[in-house]
């Protein structure tokens, strides 16, 4: 079915398949009908009218049979007249024709003050939201559970979330199941394992039995990466060490107070611990998995359906900001823009070290790694599949998982690809890619085998 065909045609099926019945899908039919279209679309306005009328008819007659019966008995022109009487088709068409203007201009976007949120934050002071016709307040939030609740409660229209969080929320893990979606990944890499200074000589993870580690949240890449790293070195993260969920700002204080031995945390927290002389950088997360996602930009399905244009504009602004942030020459300016108390509230030197990748390692050396943190918005569905395998591996999900279905529902690769193409960017053509985590290749096509291949995992 094409949305542009006449919905008052009694012989047409509005629900699925195609008009003529010769093609399997609407898309195929459209391809074919491009060649010999019976009735050319007269004008853009006419086309919109068709789309709107189609939607209205579908809403009135959810059962296609009923619609056909109605049209056959009264005739199409009567139906159109009757419909126009109680539904202002003309007005609705006009509203629809203004596609692109955001339904809601004043938006609230929540963020956690860490460098992962760079695109979301910098888009405000550097004017990316304004460029796409939005007036966005970026609101600092106290923790991941609070940002989740405030987004679910619609205090925020969209928010910065850890990449696995929208999947967990959609599946109803640790919250009521509410469909969420991810149009863009915030950052890749940019985390690190920091150990307390007293463990300077304990660099081999095999000696870490009995240590206490902090992670920001249960449903976080940090949790999965740290568990993966430990397990690869023969340490069972559930029995050999203690993992605690600790809000990032408390991590440095706890490290100094000797309450924890180390953490895998988002950046500027890692660098901050070094800056304050509380710890040293054991390993960048990029050394575990180069190019891993960390945080995401997320919104509820409800927001996407009620304000699709606002959502599209937001996504465009984030994609724009991400593209700007991915260029090394802009990083210093970004560090200065996001350092004030209104945004991240951290010393500029710390943010610069994170973003430029030239940093003090806490042991007296200066290291350089330009890809310490990087920005790439494309929401690879294979990322989501990997996260699901780890949720399954560590017992966060019980039973069977439809990896692909969940990934495709939450990670909006198709929509983002379309937006990116419209913006003149060249997004990847596939939504799945294979990658290696600590040398072990992950095949998104065989998630079950991948889970089964790990020796250390929670018995289910």
């Amino acid at each position, binding site marked *: 079915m094409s949305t542009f065909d006449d919905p008052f045609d009694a012989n047409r099926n509005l629900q699925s398949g195609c008009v003529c019945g010769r093609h399997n899908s609407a898309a195929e039919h459209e391809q074919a009908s491009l060649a010999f279209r019976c009735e050319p679309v007269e004008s853009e306005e006419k086309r919109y009218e068709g789309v709107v009328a189609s939607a209205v008819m579908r809403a009135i007659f959810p059962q296609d049979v009923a619609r056909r019966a109605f049209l056959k008995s009264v005739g199409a022109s009567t139906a159109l007249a009757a419909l126009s009487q109680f539904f202002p088709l003309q007005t609705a068409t006009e509203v629809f024709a203004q596609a692109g203007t955001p339904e809601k201009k004043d938006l609230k976007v929540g963020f956690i003050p860490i460098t992962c949120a760079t695109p979301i934050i910098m888009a405000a002071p550097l004017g990316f939201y304004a460029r796409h016709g939005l007036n966005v*307040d970026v*609101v*600092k939030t106290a923790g991941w559970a609070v940002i989740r609740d405030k987004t679910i409660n619609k*205090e925020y229209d969209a928010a910065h979330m850890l990449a696995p969080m929208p999947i967990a929320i959609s599946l109803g893990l640790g919250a009521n199941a509410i469909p969420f979606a991810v149009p863009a990944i915030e950052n890749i890499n940019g985390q690190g394992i920091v150990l307390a200074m007293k463990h300077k000589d304990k660099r081999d993870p095999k000696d870490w039995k009995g240590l206490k580690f902090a992670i920001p949240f249960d449903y976080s890449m940090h949790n999965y990466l740290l568990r993966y790293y430990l397990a690869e070195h023969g340490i069972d993260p559930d029995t050999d060490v203690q993992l605690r969920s600790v809000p990032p700002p408390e991590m440095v204080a706890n490290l100094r107070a000797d309450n924890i031995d180390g953490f895998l945390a988002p950046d500027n927290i890692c660098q901050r611990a*070094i*800056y*304050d002389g509380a710890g040293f950088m054991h390993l960048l997360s990029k050394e575990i998995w180069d190019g891993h996602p960390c945080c995401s930009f997320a919104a509820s399905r409800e927001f996407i359906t009620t304000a699709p244009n606002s959502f599209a504009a937001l996504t465009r602004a984030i994609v724009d900001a991400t593209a700007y942030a991915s260029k090394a020459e802009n990083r210093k300016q970004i560090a200065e823009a996001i350092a004030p108390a209104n945004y991240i509230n951290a010393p500029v030197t710390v943010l610069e*070290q994170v973003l430029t990748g030239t940093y*003090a390692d806490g042991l*007296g050396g200066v290291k350089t790694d330009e890809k310490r943190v990087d920005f790439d918005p494309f929401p690879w569905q294979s990322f989501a599949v990997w996260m699901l395998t780890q949720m399954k591996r560590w017992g966060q999900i019980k039973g069977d998982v439809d990896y692909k279905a969940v990934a495709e529902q939450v990670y909006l690769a198709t929509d983002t690809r379309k937006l990116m193409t419209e913006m003149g960017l060249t997004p990847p053509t596939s939504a799945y890619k294979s990658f290696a985590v600590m040398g072990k290749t992950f095949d998104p096509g065989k998630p079950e085998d991948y889970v089964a291949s790990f020796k250390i995992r929670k018995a289910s």
Partner: protein
Amino acid sequence: MTNTSLRLRAGLVSIVLLAAFLGIWHLATRSTGTVATMSPEYAKLMGLTATQGKSAMPGPLDVGAKLWEHLRRPFYDNGPNDKGLGIQLVYSIARVGAGYLLAVLVAIPLGFIIGMSPLLSKALDPFIQVLKPISPLAWMPLALYTIKDSSISAIFVIFICSIWPMLLNTVFGVAGVRKEWINVARTLEVGTLRRAFTVILPAAAPTILTGMRISIGIAWLVIVAAEMLVGGTGIGYFVWNEWNNLSITNVIIAILLIGIVGMLLDQILARFTRMVTFPE
């Protein structure tokens, strides 16, 4: 005469204690750590704690300087996440005021009814006893989940925690009005409503106000914690935001201000209490 000299001496001791405290604080936080040897390139990337052995705890001079900076511009507004201390305090006080007034509106009439009826008083007692000791912050997740609005949730938490002392004190005060007075009113055939307002209310007022004074103290204690949890605005958010930046100096300033505002609120209610107190 002896009274004035006692006051004078007490004030003197207070000042000496303060000076001693500041002195010890200053000495304890001087940079004493050894300066580590490190390359200048590396040192440039590190904080003062690491490079100069500066104590992570600020001294009284740092705090004083920062406090002066805040006091000079208390009402600046740099966007949704960075507002002056004055604005933050106004937000907190407004929240406490709203929750507290709601609690007054519910607790005092309810307390009157319960206090005047021994039956209700006995029947409701177990509920009140169970609800009273619940930590206000334990209500927070429940409030956030059901009310679905963080600032109303904060107000609700203030409401729910400040209602109990007021309710209990009102019940106690109303029930404890001397029988003779009520009997006199009855003999004079005073109506129930008039009896409540002209006999019981004035007699119970000191107890009720004591309850209100306890409540405002609790409400102020709770708001800081609630704002740290939900964030956004308020002095509690300020503490959290500065903690995020590990800026102990600002945290100390906030602590000082929270104490001062709490004291002022308490003094206001203490003055009201004195106004309604009567000699028996």
